[in-house]
């Protein structure tokens, strides 16, 4: 079972050096435990572009699709047998990146 873990952020700066060290250590643990699928940080929401090609002409808009105080600063995709394991892992993930995280299952 795979889970998409969003890192919730209300700051514009990226992680501090201490946070990056902790995140690297956490990622190593994910890998050695066989839970790692993918992870990445994202550039600021203002750098996003929204495309709507449902109509005749595609419409391209600058900025994120929803303006909010909080945004997704990065994500993990992890593999875990069930939600308990996923939550236990990402409790440490939240500590490592020093931010709230949202754990959401993929559709199976």
């Amino acid at each position, binding site marked *: *079972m795979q889970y998409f873990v969003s890192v919730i952020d209300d700051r514009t700066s990226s992680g501090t050096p201490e946070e990056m060290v902790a995140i690297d250590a956490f990622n190593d643990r994910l890998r050695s435990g066989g839970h790692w699928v993918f992870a990445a940080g994202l550039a600021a929401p203002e750098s996003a572009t929204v495309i709507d090609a449902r109509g005749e002409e595609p419409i391209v808009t600058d900025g994120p699709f929803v303006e909010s105080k909080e945004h997704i600063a990065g994500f993990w995709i992890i593999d875990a*047998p*069930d*939600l*308990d394991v996923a*939550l236990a892992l990402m409790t440490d993930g939240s500590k490592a990146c020093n931010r709230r995280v949202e*754990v*959401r*299952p993929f*559709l199976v």
Partner: protein
Amino acid sequence: MTEAVARAYQEQWARVVATLARRYRDLDLAEEAAAEAFATAVERWAVDGVPPNPGGWLTTTAHRKAIDRIRRENRRDSLYREAQVLSDDTPPEPLGAIDDDRLRLIYTCCHPALAMEARVALTLRMVGGLTMPEIARGFLVPESTMGQRITRAKAKITAARIPYRVPAAHDLPARTSGVLAVLFLVFNEGYLATGPDTDPIRPHLTAEAIRLTRLVRTLLPEDGEVAGLLALILLTEARRPARVAADGTLVPLASQDRDAWDRGLVDEGHRLVRERLASGVAPGRYQLLAAINAVHTDARDARDTDWLQVLALYDQLVRLDRSPVVALNRAVAVAEVEGPEVALAAVDDLPLDGYHAFHATRAELLRRLDRRDEARAAYDRAITLSGNTAEAAFLARRRDELDERSR
């Protein structure tokens, strides 16, 4: 429902649902197949008589209903599911003292990833066997709302793969305390029911909370906090007959007719508290609350209450639980031991302005200090905030007594 089916329902519902849920890993299917099996029992048992092993009969019938349903629905995943039934490849789980399908069911229904109200609804439906209308009535929400709540919770369990198992040892105390919180909430909603123009007590909720806590106690006999919660709610329930006067006003502990208390429940509660004391293990929150209630119910007359003992227990509780509500309740004991002035100083700064009991407690303390205007204002605030009809009626009477005294 015939008496035999009704009894089987009480005894076997959770067992049947739990067995099916484990087998098919699908709460929805387990619930529906169990309900169908009981419906069949109503028809068959009237004709064929009650089978020698009602539980076995119900489980077998429910399994058949489940398989029928899987075939009938012919859903995309049905072949896969049937294959799973035939070759159950889930690893055999260690057989421990607490290995029981019903426990798995309880921990799943009370999973922390579900909203509290969903945990309550799911536990009452899946473990307690209450019907949707019964649960909806118990919490004064429309049936459709309650139905959605349960459906959403079941969907999340499936989609997010909330596991169907007893938590690992290191998680067990926290998860058990989550289960107890659900049961205590059900009890309290029954005991101090909220809602305008509603009965002040909803005995079917208190009875269900007691029944479920007894079940958890059977499944986790070594857990001190489970025993503590059971003792606490038994000692509280024991006072129910004396708690609301004929005119519908709440009767506070000090004025209750102690002969009206349910002696059997008091004795059982006291036995549990003594058992926990004898264990020598440091008591948790529920055990301390139970011990406090044991001191109260031990006094033949309110004037004989051992307040020093009550205060000592609250002092222990405050060390475990720093919540302002505990501090507020402790103040009631402080008033008896050190006087209302000390108690008032202890409550005045508590951040509980939106809590009716805060104002009710202040009102009583101010009244004893003969600060009538402030007491009246505090009673007014408590009445506005109280959601319980009997309590509001009692507070109004106390407030009006102030005016009579000043005349």
